[in-house]
């Protein structure tokens, strides 16, 4: 059996088996005609009639009854097993019958353990039933599962199974049940992964459109590369694979399979599993000016400074992927600042989980001893514990030092209204060295860059030839992004120019995916802005409040999302007005942000501002002229109903007293109650009005300015 045509040993046997087949056919046809005669009259509701009518159904009922009996009497009659065989050959979906067989087989096996031949014949029979069931329906979950179950009983022959699979995979090369089963057999029998890789070679040369084969190739190679199995080293294998997939792509550029495999290769070329520290605030070698609630008294000073009412400042670590385990044991701090012995690190994300790419802690300082400099030294990853969500350890210990300069305190605090039009002066590149504020790209020193750069450069050259098609342009753009990721500033600048152009072309060429390209375009644009001190300083200003806050103006750039935040951790004032933003997702990493202008964007509800709840320093927020309340659409209606839907509640889940309108404006309530705003601009939104204003003043007790009006003194 097992799909191998059996040779009849002698003429008698052959005759007998032919007679058997005729008999079976008669039986089956009887079976089927009976079954067909009795139409499925009211399949559902007249099922009592069916008891008399459909054989298949009657079989099923009998099986079920016997199944129950089997449970009681722990005995399985031959008739019942035969009936279930018949049934499953007609309808492999009858999972109840498969279960019956499993129980019956287990029962039999327990009694014949001592007889290996008998043991084998019982399991052989099961494999035979599965095979004929699969011939009826090779997408039957129950049948494939039964086969796995039989194999797990210790009965298998890799050769037979692979032959059977080959038969099915020739019939339907994309059948995922067959592919899953194949992976199962390979895993169970420890078949060599190299042989399997060769099999995908064969499948692909037979039909290069077969994405299932490409997919399996990626699964196999990942595992071979991870184990560094003989000769499977990335710097040789990956370039080889590029050449392999190239044939398929260049044969027919409209065929998707090769493109997706290419995307996987690209990912293997630039991404490393081990997490890395991307940036921090303060950055290495920088000097941080700190002051108390009033700010600096020396208003002539051009130095931007950080002031906090709580007498603490944030320390931000930004990783290239989500990590967990950042704590006082994995990050050690030597600080001359007193009272910072037991620092608590917190993940900054909306996720409830304990992983994030942004981690923050707060260092305390006092301004009682003015004009003093304190050295702070951080060591990250000296002891293990920082682990990525994929389970890779942070393995490149990093060390950095900065100085904190604590300034004199000034009495009285500033309560004036913040305007986004006056009070800005150009960035003085002379007096403030930007490099001390920003961590510019550090290439991963642990990565072997040569072969990666070579492979990508070669691909770029080739794909320029295909850049007339949509997918060709898209791939070229992605290759250029990848190259920029692992290259120095000069290449970066050139690449980003081309990337922006490619996405512009794509937006025009393929309008049905406009927003997707738009987002990618935005990401590339923000990369360009933040890629060098020169380009960044064009957007930087200083705001002439008492702290000379650093202001970044990224207005009127038609940005549709937020990106490159890791380079902007030092920004205290951010102007994102006149863009196309839908959400503030990403801004939560900017822990120094005190002033934020989001006016004239496409924010549709307060839930879109949710990430701002983590920006503890935020005092001024302008969301005027957005679409909040225009559509009372509560998109969360699909996800959860209002958590405050019970109108009898007067306290929220944190036990706080809720204002009367909290049920109506619950999405606003959840964001605003956690913000410590002094100034809010909401005008130009449908939600704005007297009722909402009075709600806001209740929820935000420290609010002084609302829509330009003083509401408290």
């Amino acid at each position: 059996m097992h799909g191998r045509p059996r040779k009849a040993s002698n003429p008698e046997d052959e005759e007998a088996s032919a007679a058997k087949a005729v008999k079976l056919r008669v039986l089956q046809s009887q079976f089927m005609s009976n079954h067909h005669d009795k139409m499925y009259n009211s399949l559902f509701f007249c099922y009592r009639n069916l008891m008399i009518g459909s054989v298949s159904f009657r079989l099923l009922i009998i099986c079920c009854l016997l199944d129950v009996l089997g449970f009681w009497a722990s005995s399985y009659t031959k008739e019942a097993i035969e009936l279930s065989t018949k049934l499953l050959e007609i309808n492999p979906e009858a999972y109840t019958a498969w279960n019956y067989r499993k129980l019956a087989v287990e029962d039999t096996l327990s009694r014949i353990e001592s007889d290996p031949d008998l043991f084998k014949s019982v399991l052989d029979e099961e494999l035979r039933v599965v095979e004929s069931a699969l011939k009826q329906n090779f997408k039957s979950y129950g049948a494939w599962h039964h086969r796995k179950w039989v194999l797990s009983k210790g009965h298998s022959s890799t050769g037979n199974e692979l032959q059977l699979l080959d038969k099915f995979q020739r019939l339907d090369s994309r059948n995922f049940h067959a592919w899953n089963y194949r992976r199962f057999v390979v895993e169970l029998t420890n078949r060599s992964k190299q042989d399997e890789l060769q099999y995908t070679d064969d499948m692909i040369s037979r039909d290069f459109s077969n994405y299932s084969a490409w997919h399996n190739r990626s699964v196999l190679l990942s595992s071979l590369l991870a184990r560094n199995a003989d000769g499977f080293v990335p710097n040789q294998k990956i370039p080889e694979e590029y050449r392999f997939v190239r044939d398929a792509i260049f044969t027919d550029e409209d065929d998707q399979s090769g493109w997706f495999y290419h995307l996987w290769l690209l990912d293997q070329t630039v991404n490393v599993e081990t997490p890395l520290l991307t940036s921090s605030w303060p950055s290495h070698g920088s000097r941080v000016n700190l002051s108390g609630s009033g700010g600096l008294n020396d208003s002539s000073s051009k130095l931007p400074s950080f002031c906090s009412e709580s007498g603490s400042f944030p320390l931000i670590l930004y990783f290239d992927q989500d990590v967990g385990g950042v704590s006082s044991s994995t990050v050690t701090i030597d600080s001359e600042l007193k009272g910072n012995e037991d620092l608590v690190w917190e993940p900054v994300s909306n996720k409830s989980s304990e992983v994030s790419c942004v981690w923050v802690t707060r260092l305390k300082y006092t301004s009682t001893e003015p004009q003093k400099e304190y050295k702070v030294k951080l060591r990250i990853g000296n002891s293990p514990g920082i682990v990525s969500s994929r389970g890779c350890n942070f393995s490149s210990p990093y060390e950095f030092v900065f100085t904190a300069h604590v300034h004199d305190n000034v009495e009285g605090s500033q309560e004036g209204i913040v305007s986004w039009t006056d009070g800005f002066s150009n960035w003085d590149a002379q007096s403030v060295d930007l490099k001390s504020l920003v961590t510019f790209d550090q290439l991963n020193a642990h990565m072997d860059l040569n072969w990666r750069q070579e492979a990508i450069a070669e691909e770029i050259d080739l794909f320029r030839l295909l850049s007339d098609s949509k997918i060709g342009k898209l791939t070229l753009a992605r290759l250029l992004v990848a190259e920029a990721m692992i290259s120095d500033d000069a290449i970066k600048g050139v690449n980003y120019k081309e990337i922006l152009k490619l996405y512009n072309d794509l937006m025009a060429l393929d309008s049905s995916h406009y927003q997707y390209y738009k987002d990618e375009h935005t990401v590339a644009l923000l990369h360009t802005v933040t890629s060098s001190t020169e380009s960044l300083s064009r957007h930087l200003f200083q705001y002439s409040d008492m702290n000379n806050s650093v202001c970044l103006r990224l207005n009127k750039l038609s940005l549709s999302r937020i990106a490159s935040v890791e380079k902007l951790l030092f920004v205290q004032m951010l102007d994102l007005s006149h863009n196309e933003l839908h959400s503030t997702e990403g801004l939560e990493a900017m822990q120094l942000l005190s002033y934020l202008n989001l006016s004239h964007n496409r924010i549709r509800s307060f839930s879109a501002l949710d990430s701002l709840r983590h920006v503890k320093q935020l005092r001024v927020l302008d969301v005027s002229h957005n679409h909040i309340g225009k559509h009372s659409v509560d998109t969360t209606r699909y996800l959860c109903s209002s958590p405050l839907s019970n109108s009898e509640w007067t306290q929220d889940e944190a036990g706080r007293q809720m204002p009367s309108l909290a049920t109506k404006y619950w999405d606003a309530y959840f964001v605003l109650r956690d913000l410590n705003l002094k100034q809010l601009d909401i005008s130009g939104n449908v939600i704005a009005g007297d009722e909402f204003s009075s709600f806001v003043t209740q929820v935000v007790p420290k609010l002084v300015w609302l829509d330009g009006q003083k509401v408290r003194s």
Partner: protein
Amino acid sequence: MEELSRITVSQREQFLVENDVFGIYSCFNASDFASQKFLVEIQRDKQLDYLMDGLRKLSPSFSSLDANRPWICYWILHSIALLGDSVDDELENNTIDFLGRCQDSDGGYGGGPGQLPHLATTYAAVNALVTLGGDKALSSINREKMSCFLRRMKDTNGGFSIALQILTYSLIIRMHDMGEIDIRACYTAISVASILNIMDDELTRGLGDYILSCQTYEGGIGGEPGSEAHGGYTYCGLATMILINEVDRLNLDSLMNWVVHRQGVEMGFQGRTNKLVDGCYTFWQIQGIVTESIIHLPTLTGGCNQYLTASGCRDMCSCALRSVHGGGFRDKPSKSRDFYHTCYCLSGLSVAQHAWSKDEDTPPLTRDILGGYANHLEPVHLLHNVVMDQYNEAIEFFFH
């Protein structure tokens, strides 16, 4: 790889489908306005006739669905509900009675009376009963026993699968006693638990890890770890992650990237990379996009319909996939109609109509409904795929 130069089977099939669809489109474009209007009309009456007939009497070819009978109930009842209609009292009572007989005394529903309880048919039965609505239907579900059934399906020792490297997750859900383990099991169990208000930490523990391991580098989600990304499983995985509140753990950017590229030039959706488009994925995939847009950009943004051409797949469903018999929808123009594709084409159409509507009570804009309000369908709950009103009624019933 010299052989590569010849045209592959997939390419030939793809070409044939494109030919069929574009043939229909060009025929449509060549028609005058009145014929166009006729061509795109869903033709409610014919749809309802087809569906109601199915509830009463099925042809023998349906015998292969013997173990999936609650599914037929759900596909038909949900389609009828999407069309804004309902069944008469007798049919309703018969259905409740029938599903009652499928309910196991130890909880859960089987594929038919006397069959073992199975998660997929349990999901179908619960959704069918929710779609019927009313105290009689809803109270016929034994929630206490259901809770026991779901817990029993949660495999704590991993069974035989624990022997395999790729399947070392200890907290997973099986489809039925001794049954297979995959992402459908997670989704159907969690959907049922969520709608019946019997979800707890014990049930959800470990599921997130399992689903995460099923997301492939392409961004989509496969049926089990190591598997190829697939539209139906992606929907199951995404919906489950939202329901257990762990959706942020998925790589949503790459998921979106994968889903948008599943829309073909025909405007329909394919289930996997380089497969033919199929009407039912209109629902599975568009649902994915809309759902993700919601989580991703917290609001349904005006721009997000440009991630895909909602209007495109709407056109595809309305003119190319409607069966020539008048009622029912089909996989692709060359295939014949069936209840499964009718249910998911209508569901997909409904999502396309309502995805960008302003709120629950506002009807969608005329431009979002091809063929005008005569083709208007009821909005559905994205995570359970039951009509919104029926979902709300069930929530009211089970949560208070």
